């Protein structure tokens, strides 16, 4: 789809997904790394648990689909080579600290002087400017800064993050959208621009608008193990199953309440509750709880009725019933169960990529969308350090073997 566009990806672990999304959409993405390899190669897990820059599964995950070029941008010749590549690039993506690129003489204005059409995308913790722009940052502190962390975890312990870092993935995916918005405008105006993405603002989307509680004059909500607490009212979304856990959208109101009503009818039909419990007004139940007409203790009892019911059934039984009876129940899948999913198999989701150095093929997450006319095609494994340096310097810049050898000796590539 985007096959006619070239992306220069200067990002480290903070921005790799942006270029990968563009690569999946067909763009030619060149991952530029320092001569000793990207910092992302130091992130685990590692293939065979061997810490090695060519075995980082983080790198494999997010440098997939790109060609690799090493370049020392701190050296004048490295910078010049980059600018020559910029002259024929459509996008440049970077994730350095604000000001890093300018310090190398590679700020957007400089790139635009070489190529007025270029769209430069900057991904950073807090954005390029503002009082926190230069703050020390990490995944967990950005989740704290953007709001979702407060809402995650058990109510009697500290808030908790996911073990797979998420903050910069949100920023990087947001950056791919931003790049394509700027691209659309460029195709009309002929001019590129600078795109400034804040991870803090991107991750705030994961608060489900609860970031606005105080601003709209609503009470603050608190975390409760996947559900949430509105004052004394605790909504529960995760329940036990015979062989693990299930998610149940046990909520109320005109839309979701219909599902809860069907669930309670099923529970009643199986002998799990009495008629009075089954026939509560599930559409108006939130209002009943908020107004106090339904005691919170009774709601606690009802949630326990649901938990007793799900605890006696397997995840597979509950999912089958959800499909058959139109209920809001899903298994809490472990990673091995996810990879074995019949749904993903039926949709031919997984992609298999050969890894010759490993001596076998590796299964990866597949296309993020199925395009009727321009399907997301096959993909290449993440590049080894400098794997395509020669190919790119020769093919794109017309450098000869001797020049390339000299650049290598001088540590430029």
């Amino acid at each position, binding site marked *: 789809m985007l096959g*006619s566009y070239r992306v220069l990806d200067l990002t480290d672990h903070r921005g790799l997904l942006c270029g990968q999304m563009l690569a999946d*959409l067909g763009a030619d993405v060149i991952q530029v790394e320092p001569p000793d390899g990207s910092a992302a190669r130091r992130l685990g*897990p590692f293939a*065979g648990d061997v810490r090695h820059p060519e075995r980082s599964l*983080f790198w494999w995950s997010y440098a997939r689909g790109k060609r690799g070029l090493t370049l020392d941008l701190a050296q004048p010749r490295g910078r010049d080579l980059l600018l020559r590549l910029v002259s024929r690039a459509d996008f440049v993506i970077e994730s350095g600290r604000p000001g890093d690129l300018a310090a190398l003489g590679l700020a957007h204005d400089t790139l635009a002087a070489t190529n007025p059409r270029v769209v430069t995308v900057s991904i950073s913790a807090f954005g390029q400017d*503002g009082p926190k*722009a230069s*703050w*020390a940052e*990490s995944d*967990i502190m950005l989740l*704290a*800064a953007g709001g979702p962390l407060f809402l*995650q*975890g058990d109510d009697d*312990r*500290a*808030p908790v993050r996911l*073990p797979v870092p*998420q903050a910069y993935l949100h920023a990087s995916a947001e*950056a791919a959208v*931003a790049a*394509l918005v700027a*691209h*659309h405008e460029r*195709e009309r*105006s002929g001019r590129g621009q600078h795109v400034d993405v804040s991870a*803090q*603002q991107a991750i705030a*989307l*994961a608060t489900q608008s609860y970031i606005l509680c105080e601003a*709209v*004059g*609503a*009470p*603050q909500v608190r975390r409760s*193990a*996947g559900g*949430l607490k509105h004052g004394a009212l605790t909504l529960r979304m995760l329940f036990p199953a015979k062989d*693990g*856990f*299930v*998610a149940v*959208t046990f909520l109320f109101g005109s*839309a979701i309440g219909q599902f809860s009503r069907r669930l309670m009818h099923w529970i009643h039909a199986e002998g799990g509750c009495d008629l009075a419990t089954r026939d509560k007004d599930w559409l108006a139940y939130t209002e009943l709880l908020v107004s106090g007409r339904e005691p919170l203790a009774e709601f606690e009892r009802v949630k326990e009725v649901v938990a007793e019911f799900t605890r006696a059934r397997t995840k597979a039984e509950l999912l089958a019933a959800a*499909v058959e009876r139109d209920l809001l129940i899903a298994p809490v899948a472990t*990673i*091995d169960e996810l*990879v074995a999913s019949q*749904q*993903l198999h039926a*949709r031919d989701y997984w992609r298999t990529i050969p890894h010759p150095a*490993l001596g076998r093929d*590796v299964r*990866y*997450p597949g296309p*993020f*969308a199925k395009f*009727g*006319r321009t399907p997301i095609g096959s993909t290449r494994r993440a590049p080894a350090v400098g794997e395509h340096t020669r190919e790119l310097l020769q093919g794109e810049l017309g450098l000869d073997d001797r020049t390339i050898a000299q650049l290598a000796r001088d540590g430029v590539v």
Partner: protein
Amino acid sequence: MSTPALSDVKVLDFMWVMAGPAATRVLADYGATVVRVESTRRIDTARTLAPYRAGVLGPENSGCFQNLNTGKRMVTLDPTRETGREVVLDLVRWADVVTESFAPGTMRRWGLDYETLRAVKPDVVMLSTSLMGQTGPLATFAGYGNLAAAISGFSNLGGWPDRPPAGPFSAYTDYVSPRFIAASILAALDHRRRTGEGQAIDLSQAEASLHFLAPAILDYTVNGRVAGRIGNRDPDHAPHGVYPAAGTDRWVAIAVTTDAEWRALRDAMDRPDLAANATLEGAAGRCAQADALDEAVAGWTASRDAHDVEAILQSRGVPAHVVQDSHDLVRDPQLLHRRHFVQLRHPTDGTSPVEGSRFVLSRTPAEIGGSVPTFGRDNEDVLRSILGYDDDRITALVAAGALE
């Protein structure tokens, strides 16, 4: 004022609840005309979600719905009536993109599947998004993002090793997948501009979101390891976690990711005994003693104000941040500097706050404002100025119940 980036993009948007509307919200921010169709009879679930303005429940009061639909043209329309369906087909002729997020098969039942749309608009781009995709044994398994978060492996990973899962907050895939939805639309529009070809797009929110778990998935497909819950531990760094501060439910997230940051933290805590301990030099040694380090850090933070801890550590270059609740967030100087909160006009009651854009375009920034997206707010305008309907036609539609 520059011409907005997407000023020439026309979207007919049937997406509802959260994932879809979050995607078209971004298009509207940058100037696309998004005609958002909803029903007054089958109310958008997002209208039944908190936080509510002044804490008062009601479909016109949901801060969640308003935040997701800012900047769109709000139309009420009943596509199940033939008169309503005719209006839809007129809007399809106008649109570049048609989006929908109903249970797979719904648009077909209404006679509005891709083949039908294509017959009236050959180059239409139609994006359908659902939890599990348009095909496969679970295609009709409809629901919300909390279910997709569970079935795609996120929920099991969040929480403590000695406790049941706590997951990420709520409907997590609804906050991951919008980016893939919006990027897919924009890429398909680029293809259409260059080739004249439209197409149908099938986006499974579970499938798209799995890219946010890729390293854990590869850990299984390469190493055979099934990831589990590890609290706030980091395999490579310690101390790393969320530590208590003075007050009720106040916390600070702290991550030591280098030896320099460790020394800075140690000095800030004024713990020469830790400085004297050579086994704590180097990440491996610290990870091996993570429990003791967590205790030491928590002992230092627990009696201090969360903002003070954040300030002390940031001044020394240690990644630290208050775990912000909505009281902190609305005052966060960085978010205020970035104009993250924007006020919409409210028809009866002052203003209503929503979030701004999550990125800045230097030359064609987002333009966010207008009034709260209420039921049918733009019916007249859309029917008259976009479709050119006259009074008689509109009166007839109202009488037929097509605008409900």
